[in-house]
């Protein structure tokens, strides 16, 4: 059974058809790319999956459960974590706190333990501190654990956002333009990291990306959107040579 199964998804904003009849099945362990020109509806698809928008039509089945109509935090708790196109860190919190916040719903102590700092609180804090520092170490951020996250360099902020998403212990990770603003060397590193993430954390990954080199290098399957509709789907070699894709990106007669 597919981990994520989206059928006939449509999202209208008034008269604007942001997404129409979108279908996708993600098998466990796959890395799938979603590409298309600006305004094609890629981020809208992400926002619908994560419950930011309520879809006009269609079903989204994740891990056997229909998640349409659930709140964003419930969807995250069900196992879908995301990063944002424009980085959204908790900039006034420390680097390690960013990761700990994402672990919050796994924490076992309640409000009363928080007020009274009971034994349960100290055990929980020790556990989350170990967990967070181990995770940061994997992303080479442990040296900055107590710095404000807003003060990190750009590339490190991108890595922290991924680390934070992983702290929720997701089954599906969705990345919105992870290579945005990266130079070729950083993008190469990112490609390596995405493969490593999938194997290390047993993930399924869905990503939006504009840098074709990254998409072609990392994705096993690609879906191309334009004006809210899927125009093509297949392996990278097939997508690269498809006339509809070339037309969508470069225009007719190119």
């Amino acid at each position, binding site marked *: 059974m597919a981990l994520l199964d989206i059928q006939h998804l449509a999202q209208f904003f008034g008269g604007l058809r942001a997404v129409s009849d979108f279908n996708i099945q993600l098998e466990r362990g796959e890395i799938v790319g979603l590409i298309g020109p600006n305004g094609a509806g890629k981020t809208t698809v992400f926002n619908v999956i*994560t419950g*930011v928008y309520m879809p006009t039509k269609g079903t989204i089945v994740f891990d056997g459960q229909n998640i349409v109509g659930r*709140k*964003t*935090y419930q969807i*995250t*708790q069900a196992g879908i*974590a*995301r990063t*944002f196109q424009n980085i*959204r*860190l*908790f*900039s*006034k*919190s420390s680097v390690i*706190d960013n990761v*700990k*916040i*994402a*672990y*919050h*719903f796994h*924490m076992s*102590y309640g*409000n009363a*333990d*928080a*007020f*009274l*700092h009971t034994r349960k*609180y100290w055990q*929980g*804090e*020790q556990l*989350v*501190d*170990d967990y967070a*520092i181990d995770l940061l*170490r994997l992303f080479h951020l*442990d*040296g900055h*654990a107590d710095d404000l996250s807003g003060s990190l360099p750009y590339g490190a902020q991108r890595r922290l956002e991924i680390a*934070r*998403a992983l*702290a*929720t212990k997701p089954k599906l990770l969705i990345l919105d333009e992870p290579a945005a603003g990266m130079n070729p060397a950083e993008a190469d590193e990112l490609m390596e990291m995405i493969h490593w993430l999938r194997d290390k954390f047993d993930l399924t990954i869905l990503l939006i990306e504009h840098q074709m080199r990254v998409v072609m290098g990392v994705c096993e399957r690609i879906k191309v959107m334009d004006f809210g509709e899927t125009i093509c789907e297949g392996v990278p070699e097939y997508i690269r040579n498809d006339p509809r894709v070339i037309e969508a990106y470069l225009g007719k007669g190119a």
Partner: protein
Amino acid sequence: MTFLRAHRTIATVIAFALVYVVIKVLNLVGIFNAYYIQLIMLAGINIVMTVSLGMVNGFTGQFSIGHAGFMAVGAYTSVMITTVWLHASVANPWVGYPVFIAAILAGGLLAAAAGYIVGAPSLRLKGDYLAIVTLSASELIRTVIRVSSFLGGPRGLGGIPKFTNLEVVFVFAIVSVVLMRNYLFSSHGRSMKAVRDSEIAAEATGINTTRQKVFVFVFSAFFAGISGGVFAHLLQFIHPDNFSFMKSLEYLIYLYVGGSASISGAMVGAAVFTVLPELLRSLQSWRMVIYPLILILVMIFRTEGIMGLKEFSFILIPQRQRKEVSA
């Protein structure tokens, strides 16, 4: 000293006990008269009010501007219990203090209930709705008190037994601030800051932001209610206009001048700006000129308040040594 550095909690308790002893001695020697002691007690109450307001405005990033309304709920509730319903039994201090404590707790709970009624619908929304709702709610509470003759109406309520003394304020302020500080330095406190920094990202990391916001708002109202009870049993006379919008505004000023995202800042703001205007009594009519002037100057030179994001070391939770980090 090394012992004290290792046991910061004990050091803090000793420090506060010393402050108390110094004030008490200065009082007994006659350097601090009853007026100064009253001022110190007011500062203690204002510290709790400001720190609890900071939980909502500074750390959760919401904008509540009617904090005095919850104080009024707590004040009137506790006074109704100690003065109107149980006035006979409070003459004996052995009965009086338990009744007083039960009364201020009841005031806190009722204020928390009022906080839930105000917060639950408005905190579901993102944006500035909370400001409008809290402003109207606090004025509504004041107006209801004004027209309710059993609450004394516009004449106010007098004859309140003076249960609040220096010891009560010390215990009350320290316990309240410690509880709120504990909450802030917990997983739930980190979630509050996450809501402040980015509500969308907080939701995306699995935090039920609405529930977190409502809970903080409710316990903030609870502490405001208790402060109201302590306040009423200090002044011995309460009037609806004690809890007007100007009162709420004072707490906002204490908070933002001191530093909204810092418990220490809220404490400094409340303490300094409770005492300062009283020391400048001779300039009474200029008080409202000096206040905004200070605000403007702080906003220009210290945008994040006097303390910014910093905390006094006794506020912070001692960090344990992490495992050795390999380079």
